[in-house]
């Protein structure tokens, strides 16, 4: 099978030399395909590895996936530093340049809208976790043999245990609710100060690297000029919510805002 075309991103126009020195997911040089007032940034891939069937298998190989994901991101991020781009999702592959041109022509309206939305803006990621260490401990009901119902005799220790257990579960749930409410409020504050906001599913604990449950996995589209202000806002939200642990990543290319019909949460 012959070469396919891996799409990295789409821009309005790129100056000569804009992609010089950049290499794609197989190490081949990045190049451009232009039509309809848009420029696709692409690199060649072998359909033996990147055609539908092999791609499906390769995506299940974690080492392959990480290498390819980071190589794709490196190209997108370098361009996004100094240009307005619509990032392509991972593994958008065309059979040839004609296919790319057809996509640009067909999707021009959507792409123009996204380019306008992300122009002069970058994405920031804010993750929030329940922070049990700082959460207030609700009062535990007193447990003593005097609390046992009269005549329960030898059943008291078991009953007392169950009461404590139930109270602990209620306390845990209360803490969780408190943290979840805090994350909702914080997200609303951040979203109000961003051009757009989007929520990704919370990451599984085994993947996030933290034992506490993730309550918010937010992405915010922010004017580049307001980046410091946004970081300060995130910091102030973290400070005012002792029940939350807050992590900030960015700036990102606007991956989370690249879909044509993106809606705010």
């Amino acid at each position, binding site marked *: 099978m012959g070469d*396919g075309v891996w799409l990295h991103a789409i821009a309005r126009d790129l100056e000569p030399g804009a992609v010089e020195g950049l290499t794609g997911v197989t190490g081949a040089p990045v190049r451009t395909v232009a039509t309809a007032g848009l420029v696709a940034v692409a690199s060649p891939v072998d359909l033996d590895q*990147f*055609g*539908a*069937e092999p*791609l*499906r298998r390769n*995506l*299940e190989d*974690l080492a392959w*996936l*990480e290498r390819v*994901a*980071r190589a*794709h*991101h*490196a190209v997108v*991020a370098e361009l996004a530093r100094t240009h307005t781009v619509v990032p392509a*999702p*991972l*593994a*958008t*592959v*065309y*059979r*040839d340049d*004609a*296919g*790319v041109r*057809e*996509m640009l022509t067909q999707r021009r309206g959507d792409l123009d809208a996204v380019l306008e939305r992300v122009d002069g803006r970058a*994405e920031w*990621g804010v993750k929030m976790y329940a922070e049990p260490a700082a959460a207030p401990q609700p009062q535990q009901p007193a447990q003593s043999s005097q609390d046992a119902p009269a005549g329960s005799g030898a059943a008291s220790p078991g009953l007392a245990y169950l009461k404590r257990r139930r109270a602990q579960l209620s306390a845990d749930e209360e803490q969780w609710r408190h943290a979840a409410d805090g994350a909702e409020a914080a997200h609303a504050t951040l979203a109000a100060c961003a051009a757009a906001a989007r929520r*990704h*599913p919370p*990451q*599984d604990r*085994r*993947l*996030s*690297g933290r034992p506490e449950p993730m309550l918010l*996995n937010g*992405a915010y589209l922010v004017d580049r000029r307001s980046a410091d202000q946004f*970081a*300060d806002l*995130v*910091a*102030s939200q*973290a*400070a005012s919510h002792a029940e939350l642990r*807050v992590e*900030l*990543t*960015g700036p*990102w*290319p606007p*991956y*989370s805002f*690249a*879909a044509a019909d993106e809606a705010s949460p």
Partner: protein
Amino acid sequence: MTSIAVRPAERASLVDLLDRLLATGVVITGEVTLSIAGVDLVYVSLRALLSSAGTPGIIETARR
């Protein structure tokens, strides 16, 4: 003024990167379940529009 540490995107965890790279897309036929450390990470759908001569083929991934 309180401050917060920022982790730059170039040093992002793979999970943070994949959250973004696998978002959106068109629903498709054929499914792949990606796993990291035994945890099903995403449910990825793949499609190939097989091309007859002259018709471009597109392969896109989408996240469920």
